[in-house]
């Protein structure tokens, strides 16, 4: 049974403790950020080689009332991960999945992917997560703190969270928690939902429409009659991959 992170965005206050704890645990350097042509509290602007985790800020007016949504974005550690499926086509074992924890991991070998292959793999991710370290060329993203988890420890972002937004445990337990939180919030927030709970191991509870959080809060919805699983599998087919 894999491990799962449950992200309850209804509790998030955007304190960014998780974002900073992630950097500290992985010893990632600070980016030089600016507000110029950006103008947002969301900094850095996007995930990058030094930010595996980023709190996204999104706001809109709804009947004159401000809605301000916070979304601590990170890799979803998909049950069937398109990045891995596609990566395996080019270089088997560069992207691996830890069967015990369910973490999808980018190994040192990922530096051998070409830039085109990286771009395809990035495109294959329904959540736009993969990034590449420009110096080492290794792919980067959230590791679910796999080393910590193997030692019986919580991921750094979960450990630091002061609001109960970040939760971690057995997939079944997290699903149960997610469902119960959803049930209690549904009344007040009719738009409340879980984002792709069947496909991923980082499950977000949203209380507003997904597009009001972030373009990639859920996997793209217009997939026609195909199930998401089928879609992801299609993506990973060699033919399709080469065409892309």
């Amino acid at each position, binding site marked *: 049974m894999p491990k799962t992170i449950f992200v309850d965005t209804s509790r998030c206050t955007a*304190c*960014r*403790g998780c974002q*900073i704890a992630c950097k500290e645990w992985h010893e990632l350097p600070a980016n030089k950020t600016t507000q110029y042509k950006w103008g947002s509290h969301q900094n850095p602007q996007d995930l990058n080689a030094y930010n595996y985790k980023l709190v996204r800020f999104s706001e809109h007016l709804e009947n004159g009332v401000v809605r301000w949504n916070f979304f601590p974005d990170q890799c979803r550690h998909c049950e069937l991960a398109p990045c891995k499926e596609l990566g395996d086509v080019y270089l088997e074992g560069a992207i691996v999945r830890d069967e015990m924890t369910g973490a999808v991991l980018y190994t040192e070998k990922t530096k051998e992917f070409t830039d085109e292959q990286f771009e395809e793999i990035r495109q294959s991710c329904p959540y736009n997560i993969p990034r590449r370290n420009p110096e080492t060329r290794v792919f980067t993203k959230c590791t679910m703190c796999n080393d910590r988890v193997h030692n019986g420890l919580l991921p750094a972002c979960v450990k*630091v969270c*002061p609001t109960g937004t970040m939760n971690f445990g057995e997939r079944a337990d997290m699903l149960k928690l997610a469902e119960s939180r959803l049930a209690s919030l549904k009344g007040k927030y009719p738009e409340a939902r879980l984002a792709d709970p069947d496909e991923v191991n980082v499950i977000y509870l949203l209380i507003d429409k997904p597009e009001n959080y972030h373009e990639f809060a859920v996997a793209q919805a217009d997939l026609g009659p195909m199930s998401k699983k089928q879609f992801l599998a299609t993506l990973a087919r060699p033919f399709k991959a080469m065409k892309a």
Partner: protein
Amino acid sequence: MKLDRRSFIKLAGSSAACLTLGQLGVSLAPVKAYASGIKISGAKEVVTVCPFCSVSCHVIGHVKDGKLVNAEGDPDYPINEGALCAKGAAMFSMTTGKHRLQKPLYRAPYSDKWEEKDWDWMLDRIARRIKDTRDKDLILKNEKGDTVNRLESMFLLGTSHAGNEECAIAHQAMRSLGVVHMDHQARI
């Protein structure tokens, strides 16, 4: 209630009464071998108070070899109950960050640089400056002839970062010198 504490814990507290693994023929050799190969070190846990807002959350600092290695909310303080906000949680980096001043610095009039000095040199010079200023400017009587003993040309600004004891002696020092221009964060 015929029992006192001593009697009901004497069994649990007595190692003589306790079975050992050796008595069961279990060998601890592998564990002892493992234990001899690991490094264990000690740390102190010190209760302090977060230096930011006036909720004054209590913090347990972990100190190893005289250095702060970790800080966590004090779960026993009934107000924060172990929680800390983002700034409080960053206290560790703030105390240890590279931005800290290392030595007393002196900038001479019209100079374009700082010079490193020692504390005694600085304090001697500051004391001289204060005394000269006071002797030159202390106003013993105002225009009406009232005794006022005021040193208007010297001031103290700050600080709510100081502890109560520091504030008490700061105030006492300033009043003895005649300082009346005195202010700090409470007014901004």
